């Protein structure tokens, strides 16, 4: 995976170490291991070992109770044949690309709008807030607000809409989920992009203005290229978080104590359902295999996105 945003070994050049090693440097060296160790151990225990273990589990059939049997790549073959799993991958990609792109367009639009608006900090704070709330809450809200006799339809009726859209209809459900995601993610990315745009020196805009550039041209030729790095980092961030989406779908589509309809499953849901779903069958092997696939997915996508965005940055 790429290393976004982290200015590795920045500040001091690790190029030639020995030459002027000060006392402070030496004491730091001495402290290196003891200070790093606890975090490193936890990292190994909660990331490295589990990933390796997941890889091993994915080659086995196991219900958590009886003997584990090694079955090679069979789990992966089963996944490839399982329309529900393919659907969950497609849904995850939809979240990544459709929700991602719309969110970014909105975030940029809002950034432009908020640039010189009164009360922009307040607006930004209010829009940022949903990022901090457990998405489950929005799932419950949406079920309530958009129910056939619910507030949204009542409002629409006031405006004269007799036949409102079937918000929560089964084939609309995933679209609604995406809309809620766009709504809750826009504030976060607006904030990030705004802080980047805020650092673009004003004279660029002034110069562009003198050249007769309108708002769009300024956006296209000043804002976008100068904020490009941040955008590509945001894209990576979004990739990572889009693969994790879980709570919202669990509650959004789900009626009480039952699994949400398979048409709304994301990979995270699939992993959970295969291992811990209420159906009864515990398939740790299948679950681990699907988890590994989503890990590969996020890795490939992150690297791909980084490559793509880097190239485009040069083209501009």
């Amino acid at each position, binding site marked *: 995976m790429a290393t976004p945003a982290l200015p590795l*070994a920045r500040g001091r050049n690790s190029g030639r170490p020995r030459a002027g090693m000060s006392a402070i440097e030496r004491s730091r060296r001495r402290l290196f291991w003891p200070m790093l160790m606890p975090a490193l151990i936890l990292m190994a225990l909660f990331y490295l070992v589990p990933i390796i273990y997941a890889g091993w589990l994915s080659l086995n059939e196991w219900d958590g109770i009886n003997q584990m049997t090694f079955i090679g790549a069979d789990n992966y073959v089963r996944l490839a044949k399982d329309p529900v799993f393919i659907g969950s991958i497609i849904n995850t990609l939809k979240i990544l690309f459709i929700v991602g792109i719309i969110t970014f367009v909105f975030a940029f639009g809002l950034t432009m709008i908020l640039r010189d608006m009164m009360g922009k900090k307040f607006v930004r704070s209010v829009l940022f807030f949903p990022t901090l709330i457990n998405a489950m*809450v929005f799932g419950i809200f949406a079920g309530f607000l958009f129910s056939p006799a619910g507030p949204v339809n009542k409002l629409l009726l006031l405006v004269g809409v007799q036949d409102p859209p079937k918000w929560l209809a089964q084939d609309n459900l995933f679209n609604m989920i995406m809309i809620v995601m766009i709504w809750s993610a826009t504030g976060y990315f607006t904030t990030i992009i705004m802080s980047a745009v805020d650092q673009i020196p004003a004279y660029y805009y002034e110069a562009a203005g003198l050249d007769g550039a309108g708002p769009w041209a300024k956006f296209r030729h000043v804002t976008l290229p100068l904020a490009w790095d941040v955008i590509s980092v945001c894209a990576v961030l979004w990739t990572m978080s889009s693969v994790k989406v879980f709570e919202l779908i669990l509650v959004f589509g789900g009626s009480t104590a039952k699994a949400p309809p398979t048409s709304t499953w994301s990979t995270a849901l699939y992993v959970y359902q295969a*291992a811990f779903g209420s159906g009864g069958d515990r398939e740790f092997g299948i679950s681990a295999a699907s988890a590994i696939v*989503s890990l590969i997915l996020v890795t490939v996508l992150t690297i791909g996105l980084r490559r793509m965005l880097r190239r485009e940055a040069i083209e501009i």
Partner: protein
Amino acid sequence: MNKVITQPPLPTESVSAPGPSRPRMRRRSSRKDRISPGGYVGRTVAWLLVAFNLFLLVWMAVTSLRDTRDIVRDPLGVPAVPFVENFTNAWNTGGFGTAAINSVIATLVSSLLVVAISAPAAYVLAKSTRKLSSTFTLLFVLGLGVPGQVLLVPVYIMMAKFQDISHLQMLNSIQGLVLVLVGLGIPFTVFLLAGFFRSLPVEIEEAAAIDGSSGIRTFIQIVLPLARSGLVTAFMLAVITGWNETLFSLVLLTTSENRTLPIALLAFLDQAQFNGADWGGLFAGIVMVVTPVLALFIWLGRRIVEGMTVGISK
């Protein structure tokens, strides 16, 4: 709830990372002159969005004070008399009381631990010139990108095995959840704090070293106080993550006395089968989930926003 309105501008002015600050150029000045027609449309949209978000908060608060029957009849109504029973019922019989206490304990303990463990690591990674340190930094960053579901089954099984060996209750226990929250929180906290430590001036430490103070003492007495704002931010973000954690809690915590708030909320939804949905109580539970985060945000909004966008806007 209205506090949002009366106490607004969370000064998120400079969301730039506290990195080595480059000369900041402001373009405050005279750009307020002309607003295009498109600008007006945009502003309206922005304010409508704001109004909608605030409406949700108010609606949530109001609905939590209404009788279930009323809510079903008219989801947008306002109670004549606040129906406080929702809260007392949810707290006492709905299991939200225990869950709230569990959530507070799990969140605070795990956040303290994760910061305590990450800070030293972040410090050496930020300041060390060893080649190894950039390898390790990369390792932590890679950890950031691992989706939780990849770790779910293995961590669950490992916890079960660990419980077997140690006889310490790991499944269905708050201490088990704390351990998981700490472990999972390490990469982000290290990443975040490394950024803060990197921005600290080297000179002070050097002065301390010349004074003959040892490395650990320098770290505890000089570096940590200097990085206090970073530590607080890291702590806040760990609190928010811990407070909202659902996937692992759902798998790990089972009995009602060990549930955290999100799981209590899910269990409350489950109960609707056989004994009917209690929307009033559900909304009371939602208020309990949302309010602490809202309070934190009103109080420390700037830090939270900075923390969540740090390192990105560079």
